[in-house]
């Protein structure tokens, strides 16, 4: 696809603070309005902030971008994770990705009722509910660091 068809709205690299999440949220609201991509972005930004294995002044570090490509809004995140987090994320995403809307809804109800999986687990289900094509994820290991990459495509009117 030609680069000119993609419009980058946010490109972040480094520590994700709450102040930055809020600043990006204001930018995104102005750009895309009340689109499901907004919810996906905040969830992914706060996942980096809270759970990234690389920390700076208690804030997680990672990369996060939002771009518009034709009718889709693409939100992509990369951040270091621990081996334990890799196993948990892999297990959750393997379960969630093939699920249809009804299955995701049932799982969401079950998770909020039982409280299992923590808010991060519920957040991944909510991200999966918003996407228009299956979530893409991968783990890449380099120099003893595990990088977790997650990409979500959401329909943008």
């Amino acid at each position, binding site marked *: 696809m030609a680069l000119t068809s993609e419009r980058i709205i946010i490109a972040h690299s480094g520590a994700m603070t*709450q102040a930055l*999440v*809020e600043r990006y*949220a*204001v930018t995104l609201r102005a750009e895309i309005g*009340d689109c*499901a991509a*907004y*919810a996906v972005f*905040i*969830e992914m930004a*706060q996942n980096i*902030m809270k759970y990234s294995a690389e920390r700076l002044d208690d804030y997680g570090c990672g990369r996060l971008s939002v771009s518009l490509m034709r009718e889709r809004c693409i939100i992509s995140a990369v951040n270091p994770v621990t081996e334990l987090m890799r196993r948990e994320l892999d297990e959750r995403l393997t379960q969630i990705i093939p699920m249809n809307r009804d299955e995701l*809804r049932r799982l*969401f*109800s079950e998770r*909020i*009722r039982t*409280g299992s999986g923590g*808010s*991060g687990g*519920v*957040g991944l289900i*909510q991200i999966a*509910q*918003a996407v228009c094509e299956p979530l893409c994820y991968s783990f890449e290991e380099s120099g003893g660091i595990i990088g977790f990459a997650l990409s979500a495509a959401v329909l943008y009117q």
Partner: protein
Amino acid sequence: MFKLEKEKTVSTPYIMIDEQKGYMTFSGESFPENVLNFYSDVTDWIYKYLKTDFSSFTFDCRLVYFNSSTTKLLLNIFSAMDDAAAEGKRVIVNWTCNTYNEIIIECAEAFAEDFKNMKFRIILDENMQ
């Protein structure tokens, strides 16, 4: 009688509680850095209040976005409200969602299915912002 009013910010909702009227409302967005800290004065009050012999309690929820940590907090509040309703107390949730916000609607429907003792109304409003 407890009264609380907090102005909304980019990441936190407008909150108003009037114990005398048995009323609480949240409106706006909710993704604070620390949900438990932000809502501590609300939760400190509501869990005690729901155990009192109140006549009626209404919660108007008009959140246009909330993160997963807020979802967990709402779940805990609804659970306590539903327990109070199970004891015969009158408890009502009016949850207003934008007609086009499917994520919020699905979340509200999941809550409504799980908490059957209290009256849980979902109101769709296409002009809600």
